[in-house]
């Protein structure tokens, strides 16, 4: 079969699945007074459409910041404004100031779902197709990877089920990566700046971008070409930031207010039950209560910095593309595990770079992606997304094992651990990792996830421990993520450093 028909099939499958998931309820459906993220997005349309731009981030008589106040960077606000214009042309009631609060109807649901669908189709999906299209490997395998990557359940469930626009920010970040891949550094920098200005969470990815670009310039020599390049990049970044923030640069007060909205220190170390270290530690020690808030901030900052430093240093010294992807995983995972104010949805930021490794390390990537979806289970259950969660996760497991033979690729070579095991063998001569051990661990982990999902969906927790199941889920995920962090760090640090090639002429 021809390539284009295969791509057409992949696209129609992934679009159909996305829309089928969106038939399910969204977050906060029919739950007054606060509703959920769906209402937040609708409310932002209402605010941006009806209020002058300098009031968007301020608490005024017509903009109650306590009720889903805007706390994303300006690009999100502009996006809401565009959506609001479309909404206005269909039904002005949807965005009427004050009176539209908590508006829900079938027509509105279709409209909102369609905005996510369009954003996904316009930004994220082409980026994934473009990335995999330029990977190495036979045609068949590429198509299979496209299908698997596009059917990653986590993103589909959060964007098209729970309701958010992660595909925009993740897609823009991916375009940034593609820019670096094709050596269109300036394009890449602009795309990533846009991603950052869409969602501040993209800061998780910022350090690898910075280190890669810096490393690249250093390689070219800081005295000649490299310096010019660095200045160019810096200029481009500044200009694109200024462009996004233009309306808010009129006064210092405006900019500070936006920044304060974006980084709310007072919201605590973590929210709900997250599969990160602080939440898991709270089982033993109530970190939130024992430590002063300022200490919490510093502690989390230090821990994050310590864990991501090795990968970043390595990337600066040896800015390879492979290393760049691994550093993206490591940094976002460190942020997720150790940083301040983490949401369970932030795991998507780590999942994106892992998706890019799916065709290279199918076994570990599949495992990670399944765990990452599982870690959001309590949230998905709250939204009534049990059915699509089960179906898409099983489907993902099915297609990765069928098309990428993920379950078979467990040799040291497939796991890319040869360098590491050679290194270890110098100290421990008989060191081996038996392939069946990896398989067994994977199987056990999948079974545990199935059992935990079943229990949380069907059983009532014991009355004295109402949060038992979410805590178990986050503990389970946290342990996995720590192991994955270790694995991907080993992978990155054991990557051989290539000497600069001799031909300097070109």
């Amino acid at each position, binding site marked *: 079969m*021809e390539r284009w028909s295969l791509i057409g099939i992949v696209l129609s499958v992934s679009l*159909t699945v996305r829309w*089928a998931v969106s038939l399910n309820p969204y977050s906060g459906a029919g739950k007054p007074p606060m509703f959920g993220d769906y209402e937040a997005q609708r409310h932002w349309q209402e605010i941006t459409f009806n209020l002058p731009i300098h009031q968007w981030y301020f608490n005024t008589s017509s903009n109650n910041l306590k009720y889903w106040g805007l706390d994303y960077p300006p690009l999100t606000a502009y996006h809401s404004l565009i959506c609001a214009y479309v909404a206005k042309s269909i039904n002005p009631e949807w965005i009427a100031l004050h009176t539209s609060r908590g508006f829900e109807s*079938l027509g509105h649901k279709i409209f909102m779902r369609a905005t996510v*669908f369009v954003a996904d189709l316009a930004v994220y999906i082409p980026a994934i197709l473009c990335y995999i299209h330029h990977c190495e490997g036979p045609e068949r395998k590429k198509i299979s990877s496209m299908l698997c990557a596009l059917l990653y359940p986590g993103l589909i469930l959060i964007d098209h089920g729970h309701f958010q626009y992660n595909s925009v920010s993740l897609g823009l970040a991916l375009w940034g990566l593609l820019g670096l891949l094709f050596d269109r550094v300036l394009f890449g920098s602009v795309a990533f700046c846009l991603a950052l200005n869409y969602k501040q969470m993209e800061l998780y990815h910022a350090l690898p971008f910075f280190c890669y670009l810096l490393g690249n310039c250093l390689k070219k020599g800081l005295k000649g070409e490299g310096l010019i390049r660095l200045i160019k990049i810096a200029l481009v970044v500044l200009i694109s930031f200024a462009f996004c923030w233009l309306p808010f640069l009129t006064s210092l007060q405006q900019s500070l207010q936006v920044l304060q909205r974006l980084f709310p220190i007072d919201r605590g170390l973590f929210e709900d039950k997250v599969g990160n270290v602080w939440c898991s530690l709270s089982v033993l020690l109530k970190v939130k209560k024992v430590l002063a808030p300022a200490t919490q901030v510093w502690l989390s900052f230090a821990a994050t910095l310590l864990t991501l430093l090795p990968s970043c240093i390595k990337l600066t010294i040896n800015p390879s593309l492979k290393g760049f992807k691994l550093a993206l995983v490591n940094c976002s995972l460190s942020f997720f595990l150790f940083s301040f104010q983490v949401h369970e949805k932030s795991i998507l930021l780590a999942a994106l770079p892992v998706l890019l490794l799916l065709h290279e390390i199918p076994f570990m990537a599949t495992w990670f992606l399944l765990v990452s979806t599982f870690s959001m289970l309590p949230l998905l259950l709250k939204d009534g997304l049990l059915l699509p969660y089960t179906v898409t996760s099983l489907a993902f497991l099915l297609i990765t094992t069928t098309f990428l033979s993920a379950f078979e690729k467990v040799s040291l070579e497939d796991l890319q651990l040869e360098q590491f095991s050679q290194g270890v063998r110098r100290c421990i001569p008989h060191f081996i990792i038996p392939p069946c051990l990896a398989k067994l661990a994977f199987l056990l982990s999948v079974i545990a996830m199935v059992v935990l999902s079943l229990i949380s969906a069907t059983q009532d927790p014991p009355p004295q421990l109402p949060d038992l199941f979410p805590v178990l889920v986050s503990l389970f995920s946290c342990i996995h993520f720590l192991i994955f962090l270790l694995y991907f760090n080993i992978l990155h640090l054991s990557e051989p450093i290539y000497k600069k090639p001799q031909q300097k002429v070109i």
Partner: protein
Amino acid sequence: MAAPSERCWNWLVPLVFGVTLLKCLLIPAYHSTDFEVHRNWLAITHSLPISQWYYEATSQWTLDYPPFFAWFEYLLSLIAQYFDKEMLVVQNLNYASDATILFQRLSVIIMDIVFSYGVLECCKCVNRRKESKEIMERPAFILAVLLLWNFGLLIVDHIHFQYNGLLFGVLLLSIARMFQERHLESALLFAILMNFKHIFLYVAPAYGIYLLRSYCFTENKLGGSIQWKSFSCSRLFALGFIVFSVFAVSFGPFISMGQLSQVLARLFPFKRGLCHAYWAPNFWALYNVMDKILSVIDVKLQLLDPARLSKASMTGGLVQEFQHAVLLSVSPFATLVCTLLSIMPAVLQLWLRPRGPRGFLQCLVLCALGSFMFGWHVHEKAILIAILPLSLLAVENRKDAGTYLILATTGHFSLFPLLFTGPEMPIKIGLMLLFTIYSFSALQALFRRERSLTNLPESIYLSGLIPLEVICEIIYPLTAWQQRFPFVPLLLISVYCSLGVTYSWIKLYISVLTEPGTDKKMKAQ
């Protein structure tokens, strides 16, 4: 035989699992009144004695399937009571709790196991001449996808809501048994199938004639003509016994209660109109449109008094009783005659020049198409009886593949009006694209050494479906005409598709009648 069947299983499992997961994803989607129909039947069979099954009329959706289907509903109701007892109360009209939806949807999904088994058996019958190393390019694989992922079956069963997967599974199994020369088993399965849903009566002529000609007569003369002396009475008796006992088991209880006429009246409601509310894309759709055009012309030429035109004629398409203004009105008997005439050549061909199971399958498809073209009150869903068996022919023969592509694409497109709700629109378009792209590219790859499977006019006609969809479902509802003439999009779709269906019917007919020689491989037993 063991080795190929083992090989079959390996790749079939992900295909079946994949489509099952897709079906599960469609559980919250829209379901039509057929959902309530089946819920009502669950309630009737569960809570009433057998003697009242065909008399109960609390709901307007009375039981109008043959007894085996009623028994099937009864068995389902035994499990249903553990999901939600309320759905089994006859008076609970339009009851659709979450548990009820889950149960009914799951019952359809699980009964599709029968369908998957039928597909597996059919895949074993595919001619292995074109064995390719690449699994995805083998005819058996392509056939499995064309059947398991069939667009029509997916939306009719898993969105609209019906149990066609189960029924077509039995049909495919019976066809496969015919290919495997297990004739009695095939007859048994088909007799059972007819007692599940009597619409399969349409293809019964193919079964009857084929079994009589190629099973009861054990030998042929040298030229392939009939050897009268070889008639085997024992075979005829065995066949007759099987069919008779199946019908006896099914209808016996009702005959003994003296209810046969009531059951038959429920099964064959001729009070309905010539065409369904939405015209199935068949000959009568063209006939009605022709009538309308002629009446408009006649009124313009003042040959016809506008006062004589009945109101129904002017708003046609929404009213079931359609009064023809110029052309003759059609009676049920006339449609029966037309149907019989239309299948006559195919049946004669099957009798005079038997070509083994392949000829039987061709005749079966032609019977299904003939009755679809000319039948009384045909539903658009009935096109699946032709499309699914034609898939088997399509993977073996280049010409049939071309016909299949036209018939499947237009037939499936004509199912679009079944799903008219906003949220389901992207799903039906996505699934349609998925199936159409796959069927075109896979069949093209299968016959890759030859030219394109469809010629230029055919391709132009098929691409015309895209603007048609855009106009009918996106642009037209935004115009002011939607209020005054809401039936126009349905009419356009139905007429446009009926052209394609008619064309592929004629094309298939010509290719069957002109196919050279008898199949040499057919063994005279």
